[in-house]
């Protein structure tokens, strides 16, 4: 992986090549990489810096094989991301990274892969799908389950439609509520679980979304016979430095920025959903 700059605390200045509004509160930034280049592994994040406002950790949502662009898909929740939503093409943004652990896609060659995404959690999983679909023969059955609030909140709609047309990918989308006329599923993402067929001896699952969603998804996967060492999760914590120095992201002895955000569940089961942490 090629980091943006040598001094990891100083953001590189990147130009916004494209700004695409995905939904009412979600948008995608395509940034030009700096001259020294940029590469990442699926699941990693960058710290994006809005000059004068603040810095936030945002996972990378682009294709890891595409080194010509840095792509971030962001949901506007706080002050920094809301301000980012007003950015325009050719404006500048500060970038530090890439940071953190990644989904272990190379270790999972030959396995069936289940991806479960909730809300903006689809963004860190998209690079996994890009990789798998470009190397499709190296993996077994591939399933993507994606849950959102409403049909209007679905991100990457066109891409999902084109993926739906593939015979080598099972894809189910579900929303919490919909108007009459929506022909997809309605219900939280966990309600899809009883309907899917998995080979528990050969499946690896990668989950990304709010902790509560992952918690219930893990329960369903356990019912299906998956063990904790077959399930990977991406955790979220407040971050500042992104490199294990400040302690903001600490979860017991674990630094989410450095030891995560992608964890094997069996390694963090004792930390997951702990109220005290």
């Amino acid at each position, binding site marked *: 992986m090629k980091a943006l700059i040598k001094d990891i605390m100083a953001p590189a200045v990147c130009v916004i090549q494209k700004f695409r509004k995905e939904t009412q509160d979600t948008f995608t930034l395509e940034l030009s990489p700096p001259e020294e280049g940029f590469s990442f592994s699926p699941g990693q994040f960058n710290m994006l810096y809005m000059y004068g406002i603040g810095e936030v950790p*945002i996972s990378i949502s682009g294709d890891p094989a595409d080194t010509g662009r840095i792509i971030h898909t962001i949901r506007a929740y706080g002050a920094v991301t809301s301000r980012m939503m007003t950015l325009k093409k050719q404006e500048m943004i500060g970038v530090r990274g890439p940071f953190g652990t990644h989904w272990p896609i190379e270790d999972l060659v030959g396995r069936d892969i289940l991806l479960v995404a909730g809300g903006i959690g689809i963004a860190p999983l998209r690079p996994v799908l890009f990789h798998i679909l470009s190397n499709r023969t190296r993996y077994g059955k591939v399933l993507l389950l994606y849950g959102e*609030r409403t049909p209007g909140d679905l991100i990457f709609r066109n891409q999902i439609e084109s993926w739906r047309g593939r015979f080598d990918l099972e894809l189910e989308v579900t929303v919490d*509520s919909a*108007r009459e006329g929506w*022909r997809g*599923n309605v219900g939280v993402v966990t309600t899809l679980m009883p309907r899917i067929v998995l080979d528990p001896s050969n499946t690896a699952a990668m989950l990304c979304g*709010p902790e*509560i969603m992952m918690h219930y998804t893990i329960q369903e996967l356990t019912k299906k016979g998956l063990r904790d060492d077959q399930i990977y999760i991406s955790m*979220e914590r407040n971050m500042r430095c992104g490199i294990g120095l400040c302690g903001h992201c600490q979860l017991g002895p674990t630094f989410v920025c450095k030891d995560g955000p992608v964890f094997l569940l069996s390694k963090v089961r004792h930390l997951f959903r702990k109220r005290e942490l």
Partner: protein
Amino acid sequence: MDNSKKTLELHPFFEGMDPDLLDVMACCACHREYQPGQFIYREGDEADQALLIIEGKVCVEIFAAQRGSLVIQTLGPGDILGWSWLFPPFKRRFDARAIELTRAIALDGGVLRQKADEDHRLGYELLKRFSRLVVERLQATRLQIIDIYGKHI
């Protein structure tokens, strides 16, 4: 009836059920088919059956004045549609409509209630299975209403 019993046996909802009880249930069962867009029932209708979905997709809707019909749940193969037949006042609370061509086994609610009164083993099995279904749906509904797809990096 034999065909219905086989279908009941294979349906995940009745997995592990005593074959004698499945025989009784099969007596109350018949095959149904619904075209895309066809209402299976509407709010306020008498709740006279449970549907075991074999194939297709069904949406459960609620009508809200000025907002039209809102889809609150979809069900597919392996799912059960409707438990109002089991509890007074035996009325449907929502609308249910087929989104795709849907094939199902319909169990006659009135007959089932009567058989369950006569044979408490059957009654207990039905209550166990339907209360688990109600609990699962309640948990899913709780997640649905708290907007779980909140903030994430």
